[in-house]
Structures are given as structure tokens and as C-alpha cells.
């Protein structure tokens, strides 16, 4: 892995998938956690025709300095949850960057060799947890294990803010999902002996 926690450099991330997979809330949770840590943040959603029955994405920027453009064409990292997003955004990751994908929904990952490409079976794992909607949090947990751009505590605080109060009974399972994602990514990172 490349050096991943250079706090001077902003993190420019795109999260993309089908509508309903939790793309926007994944990005929002991360952005909120950035704010908890007094960082500069921006969260730019796609709200266009693609949102109305197709792919959704959001660009999240977390930085120690003021953020210039919220619209980007190149990214440090991508979290992709479906094949069209893989096809669209894999070419737009900067060399040395991270491509994290949901391996249950994506059968043809990118063949680039100049970036780190890591698949997480988050849907399968979410099914095991008996709540498929935790899939996005498993992905977020895995991402944070690989790119610790914010602290764990901040994410937990963010989760409580992003999740509407009537869903707060789901906080524990979301926390579990985050931890599971971290574990999965850690296991994948460790060399097989």
C-alpha cells in the first residue's frame, strides 16, 4: 500500500452505485465525520436524471485547507458499488490511488495495475447480518481501514447525526457493519502466509 494518511493532502473521493445502495449517505457520514474533526469538507451529490432510476454518485472532499472546486474529474479514491460505476470511474483514479469495490455486484473490476484495487463482499456480509442496507457501512468501514482520513470516534458521532432519530435503533447494527468492513479490509491487506 502507498502512504495513505498524509494529512496535508486533501482526500478526493467519489462514491458511486445504484440509487438505494446508500451511496449518498455513505458520503454524507464521511463528510460529517470530517466536520466533527474541524476539517474542511464538501459533499457534492449527483441530483440529475441519473438519480431518477439509475446510478447515483457523490464527490466527497476532506481537507485541512479551504476546498476549491467541489467538482472533480480525477480522484484519489473511489468506492464503487455497481458495474456501470466501475466502468465509469476506474479510469479516473489518480495513479497510486485506491479503488474499492463491492465484489458481489461487480464481476469485471478494472485491470489497471497502477492503483490499488480491492474487492469487498459487502452484500454477502450484509445478508449474513440480516440487513442488506448495512452494505454501505461495511464498505465505509473497509475504506477507513485502508484510508484512515477520519477517526473512528468521529464516524460514530457522524452516524448518529446522519441517521434520522427514528432510525437510531439501527445505530448498533451500523456500528457492527463498520467494524466488519474494517476487519475484512484488514484481512485482505495482510499478506497470506
Amino acid at each position, binding site marked *: 500500500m502507498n502512504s495513505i494518511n498524509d494529512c496535508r493532502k486533501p482526500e478526493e473521493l467519489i462514491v458511486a452505485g445504484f440509487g438505494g445502495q446508500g451511496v449518498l449517505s455513505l458520503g454524507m457520514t464521511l463528510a460529517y465525520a470530517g466536520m466533527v474533526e474541524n476539517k474542511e469538507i*464538501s*459533499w*457534492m451529490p449527483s*441530483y440529475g436524471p441519473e438519480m431518477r432510476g439509475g446510478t447515483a454518485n457523490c464527490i466527497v472532499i476532506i481537507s485541512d485547507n479551504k476546498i*476549491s*472546486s467541489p*467538482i*472533480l*474529474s480525477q480522484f484519489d479514491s473511489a468506492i464503487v458499488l455497481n458495474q456501470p460505476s466501475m466502468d465509469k470511474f476506474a479510469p479516473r483514479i489518480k495513479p497510486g490511488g485506491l479503488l474499492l469495490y463491492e465484489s458481489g455486484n461487480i464481476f469485471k473490476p478494472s485491470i489497471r495495475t497502477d492503483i490499488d484495487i480491492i474487492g469487498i463482499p459487502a452484500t454477502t456480509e450484509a445478508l449474513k447480518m440480516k440487513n442488506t442496507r448495512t452494505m454501505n457501512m461495511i464498505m465505509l468501514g473497509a475504506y477507513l481501514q485502508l484510508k484512515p482520513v477520519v477517526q473512528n470516534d468521529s464516524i460514530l458521532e457522524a452516524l448518529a447525526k446522519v441517521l434520522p432519530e427514528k432510525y437510531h435503533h439501527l445505530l448498533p447494527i451500523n456500528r457492527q457493519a463498520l467494524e466488519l468492513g474494517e476487519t475484512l479490509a484488514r484481512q485482505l491487506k495482510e499478506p497470506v502466509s
Partner: protein
Amino acid sequence: MSEFKLMKGNEAMAEAAILAGCDAYFGYPITPQSEVLEYLAREMPKHNRIVMQAESEVASINMVYGAAGAGFRAMTSSSSPGISLMQEGISYIAGAELPCLIVNVNRAGPGLGTIQPGQGDYFQSTKGGGHGDYKMIVLAPASVQEMADFVFLGFDLADKYRNPVLMLSDGAIGQMMEKVQFKPYTRPETDKSSWATTGKPRTRNRNYITSLHILPEKMEIHNLKLEEKFKKIRENEVRLEEMNTADAEYLFVAYGLSARICQKAMDIAREKGIRIGLLRPITLYPYPYRRLLELAGQVKMMLSVELNSGQMVEDVRLAVEGKVPVEFYGRMGGMMPTPEEIVHHLETLIQYHHAN
């Protein structure tokens, strides 16, 4: 200082309206600004304020006309097609000299166009839009924080000049989330008793609000009075932001979202050794002509970047009086240029001007 919140531009604007003491909001839903009506419909009644979903934008703006005439802080918001429908009402409000705040979360046109961001309403906003000789003060936010701040500023300027103020945002600034802080606000004292129709006591004459002055002699006097006001606005209310202009050989001129994208383009260009700065007009009316003319004596070329076919570039050209080449780069249809794309265009232009 109050704490930071994570909000969409549209939500921040709506919350600011409540904090600024907006008495009444009239609107009709349209993407990409429907969050404003949603937010205010939920929150305004808690503060005993009026929110009404009108039957159309034509009705919204005329409700604003009525509420403003009665001395209330009134506001509406919409996106491009809806703002087009409001133009008659805006002209009447300007003619009747009433303060109000209008927000346009610009989407790409013409016609229904698309719901994606655009800046194609620059001419409509700054050069009239409705009929007759009038001007609105036009504020162009480039961040969620400014979406909030300019509500307070907008209402205050509207009261100060008894003139409609337009906040010209765009779909991206309206939809994106950033952190925002609501600063403590003290509303300036304004005495509306000499004109607002609040019910006539025996102690004064009737207050009468109209934009009709049927005698040409009287109408011209009214026109001249308005022109005097617009002159005062031009002298006192120009606002702009400069970045890296001190040593600039080239200059981006851009507002709103385009200015944000140009900041990134500026960083990339400077890494390549191109000394470029950015002038961001914050008020589109009044326009920072004077500062651009000064910079025309310093830089070799200006490049106006807009989400349209080239509208503000005309004001940049007016400003520099032919002293320096003024170029344009833009995308339309809800497409947004990437920073890299702008730098590429800049490099091509520099080469071209160097060769000629």
C-alpha cells in the same frame, strides 16, 4: 460563535431566512431548489411565520409584492424557468420600490432545459429581465456559507435601497453540502412607516404603493429618482474577491460555481508556472468594472469562465476598454468544465496570444 452545521446550500439559505427574520415565504417547487420550500414549510410555522405554496411562480412573486408592500420581510425562490415567470412581478416591485429577496438556483436552459447547474441567467439577472429601466442588486454565492450569509446581506440591502435583491446561485451550490456557521445577526433599524401600507391612522396621509405614473412628466421624475438610487448602489455596493492577483500575468474572471472550479484550475496552472489570478465578482450588479480596468493595466489576458455561452464576458470586455484581450470558456446544458479542461484551454490561449 455558533457551531458548524453540515447543510445543503438550499437548506442553509432557508435557515438563514428564518434567522434573518423573514416574515413570509411564497414559492412553488422546482428542482434544484425544492429543499427551500420543504425546509421552510416545516420550520417557518414553528416561528409563526407565513409559508405558502402558491399556484405558480407568477402568484409567488405577486404575493411577495403584496407582503413587501405591507412592510414585511418577504422572499421567494425558484430556479430558472420559474424565475422567468416572475419577471413581470419583479419589474412591478422594482417600479414600486419595494424591498424583497428573490433567489434563483440557476439550472441550464433555455426552456425547461435540464435540472443540472447553469449560469445562463446572467443577462436576465443583471440586464433587466423584466421590462423598463430597473436594476436589482445581484449577489452570487460561491459556497454554502455564502448561500446563508447573502440572505442576511440581501434583506439588509433590499431594505436600505427599497429595491429587490436577487441571489443568483446555481444547482451545484444549492445541492452540495458544506459546513456552515450562522453568525449572530442584528437587523438594522428600518423605518417603513412613510411608505408601507400598514393601515392608515388619522395622523398621516394615505400610503400608496404603485408602479403606475400615468403622466409622462411624473413618470420621468420617478425614473430619474430610480436612476439616482442605482447610481448610489453602483458607487457603494460593489463586492468582489481576489486571489493571487498581486503577481498575476493572467486573470480568471468567474463567479459562483465557476469561480470554485477556477480556483482549482489556478492551483494547477500555478504549479505549471503560469502566474494566473482570479477575480470573483460577488455582486454581479453592481459589477466590479473599476477593479477590472485597473487589472487590465497589469495582466496580459483575461479569461472569463462561465456555465453558459458567454454572457458575463461582455461585462469584462466593457470593463477593460480594449486594453487587454478578453477570452471566454464555457460549458452549457448542465455540463461543468473540469479544472484540467480549463487549464488546457488557458494554455492554448496563452500560446495563441504569445504567437500573435
